[in-house]
C-alpha cells in the first residue's frame, strides 16, 4: 500500500482499540499516535499537529464534548479534524455528534477496511 499523507492521534482508554487501529495504520504504512486520556492528548497536541484526532467521547473523566472544545483551542493546527468514536450510538447520537461540531463519526466496532478512506475523506473535506 502506498503511504498517503495522513497523521492520526487516537484518544481512547481501551488498549485493544489501540491494537486494532495500529494494525490498520501499519497496514497502510501510516503513523499513529496514541493517547489514553484527554490530558495525554492535550499534552501531545501542544507539540504535534496531526491531521485528525480520533476521540472516544465516553472517556472516563472529561466529557467528550468538553474535550472537543479543549482540543480545538489548543491544537497547533487550526484545521485539525476531530472525529468522534463510540460503541453506543443511535441515529440520534450520530446527528447530535455532528451537530456539536465533530467533523466525523466512527462507530465501533470499526469498519477496518474503510477506516483509512473515511479519515482521508474527512481530512480532505474543505
Amino acid at each position, binding site marked *: 500500500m502506498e503511504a498517503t499523507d495522513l497523521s492520526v492521534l487516537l484518544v481512547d482508554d*481501551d488498549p*485493544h*482499540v489501540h*491494537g*486494532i487501529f495500529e*494494525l*490498520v495504520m*501499519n*497496514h497502510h504504512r501510516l503513523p499513529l499516535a496514541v493517547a489514553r486520556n484527554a490530558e495525554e492528548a492535550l499534552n501531545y497536541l501542544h507539540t504535534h499537529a496531526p491531521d485528525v484526532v480520533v476521540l472516544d467521547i*465516553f472517556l472516563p473523566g472529561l466529557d467528550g464534548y468538553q474535550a472537543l472544545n479543549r482540543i480545538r483551542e489548543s491544537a497547533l493546527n487550526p484545521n485539525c479534524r476531530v472525529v468522534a468514536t463510540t*460503541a*453506543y450510538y*443511535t*441515529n*440520534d447520537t450520530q446527528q447530535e455528534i455532528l451537530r456539536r461540531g465533530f467533523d466525523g463519526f466512527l462507530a*465501533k*466496532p*470499526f*469498519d*477496518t*477496511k474503510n477506516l483509512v478512506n473515511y479519515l482521508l475523506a474527512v481530512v480532505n473535506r474543505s
Partner: protein
Amino acid sequence: MVVPFTNQSLDSLTRGPKALILGWLEPRAIDRDEAFRERAIRSSVAIMGALALVSFALSLFVFDDPWGIVSIPTMHIVALAGCLASSVAVARGRLLLSGWLLTATVMLGVSLIVILARQDGVVSRIFVGIPAFMFLPLVAALIFPRNHILPISVLSIVLYTFAQFILPVGNFTVAGLDTTQLLGQLIALLLIEGAVLRQLRIEFDARLEAMQESIRQAEIARQQAEKDQQRAEEADRAKSQFLANMSHELRTPLNAIIGYAEAMLGGMAGEFTPQQNKLLGHIRHNSRRLLALINDVLDLSKIESGSVEVYLAPMSPRVVIQDSVESLRSLALEKEISLSIHLADNLPEVILGDASKIQQILVNLVSNAIKFTEETGRVTVTASSLDSSRWQFEVADTGIGMPAEAVSYIFDPFRQVDGTATRRHPGTGLGLAICKRLVQKMDGSIHVETAPGKGSTFTVILPRVSVPGEGGSSAKRSTPDKS
C-alpha cells in the same frame, strides 16, 4: 352571657361580640370525640346562661317577683351560678366536671320550679317538671360517658319525686290525680329512656371507633404504598444504571474480537491460508451476531425499564420513510426483490414525531420483509393519513407468510415463527418486540395480517400530532412505562 376570662377569650374580646360567641363555642380538645362533647357543653352553657339572664331581668324588672330563701330570683341566681361554675370548668378542660355541674344546676333549677309551683299553687308550672327531667338524660347521652347515663336517669327520678311528692310544701291537691300511678309511670319512663339512650350511645361509640380504625388503616396503607413506590423507583434507577454499565462492559471485549478478526481478514496481520481465513470469517460472523443480540437485548431492557423517552420534533413522514427504505435497497437488490414506496396524497408534509424511532421501526419491518421473501419477490411500503388524528404506514411483502396462530405471539420477545426457519433466517427474535414497545411508547398500535405462502402486511398506526403553527419547536415527552 357569662364568659370566663381565659387568654383566648381576651383575644376574642377585641374582635367584637360575634367573634366572642364563636370563640367561646370553639372546642379546645383535640380528640374528635372530646371536642364534640365539649362543643355540646359549651353551647348548652351558653344557651342556658343567656336564657337565665333574660329570665332574671324579666323577673326583676317586669314581673317584680318577691325575694325569699326559696323564690324565683334565688332560683335564677342558682342557675346563673351553676352556669358560671360549669363554664369555668370547661374552660379549664374539666369536661366531666363541667357536665355534672350543668346537670346539677338544671336539676336543682327545675326542682326549685316544682317546689315554687307547689308553694304558689300554680298548677301549670308543675307540669314543667316532668319534661324537664326527661330532657336531662337526652342531653346526658350526648355529653357524658355512657356509664353516667343511667345514674342521671335515676337521679332525675329521685329529685323529681322528692320535689314533687315528698317535700312538705304547699297544700293543694289536684282532683283525680293518682300520685302513685303518676310516679310509677314516670319511674318506668325515665328508666326505659335511660336504658335506650345508653344502648344508642354504645352503638354510636362502636361505629365511631370502627370509622377511626379504618382511617388509621388507610393511613398505614398509604404510608406503605409510599414506601413501596420509593423502593420501586430506586430499583428502577439501579436497573438503568446497571444497564448502562452492562452496555459498556459487554460491547468493549466484543468490539475487540470483531476488530481483530476484521483486521486479520483484511490482510493487516499478514497472509493467512484459505482455511485460516475461513475460520476467521466464522469468528467475525458469529461475534457480529452476538453483538446484534446484545444490542437488541439491551435495547429491549432499556425500553422495558422505562429509560427510553419519546422525543417529539417536526418531521417529514415522507423523508423518514424514504431514508429508511433506501438504506435497505442494496439488501433488497441482493435478492432481486423489488422494493417500492407509495405515499398517499393525504399524508401530511410535517408532523410532530420521533423520527429516529419511526426509522428504527421501519428498518426493522422492511429488513424482516426482505429476509422472509424469496428471490424476485416484492416488498411495498405505503403510508397515508388514516383520519384527522391518526396516520399509518404499512410494510407488505410477498414472502412466506405466517400461520394464523403466529399473529398472537410474533410480537413477544424471542419468539420466531418456526424453529427451523431461523436457521435460514437468522435474527435475534427481538426486533418485533422492540418495534411493538416503541410503537406503544408513541401511543400507537401495530398489527399484522398474514397467511402462509401469501406474505405478510405489518401495519403501524400512530397519532397524528400537527405542528403548532409554523416553525414549531421540538418538545420532549416522556411516557411512563406500563408493563
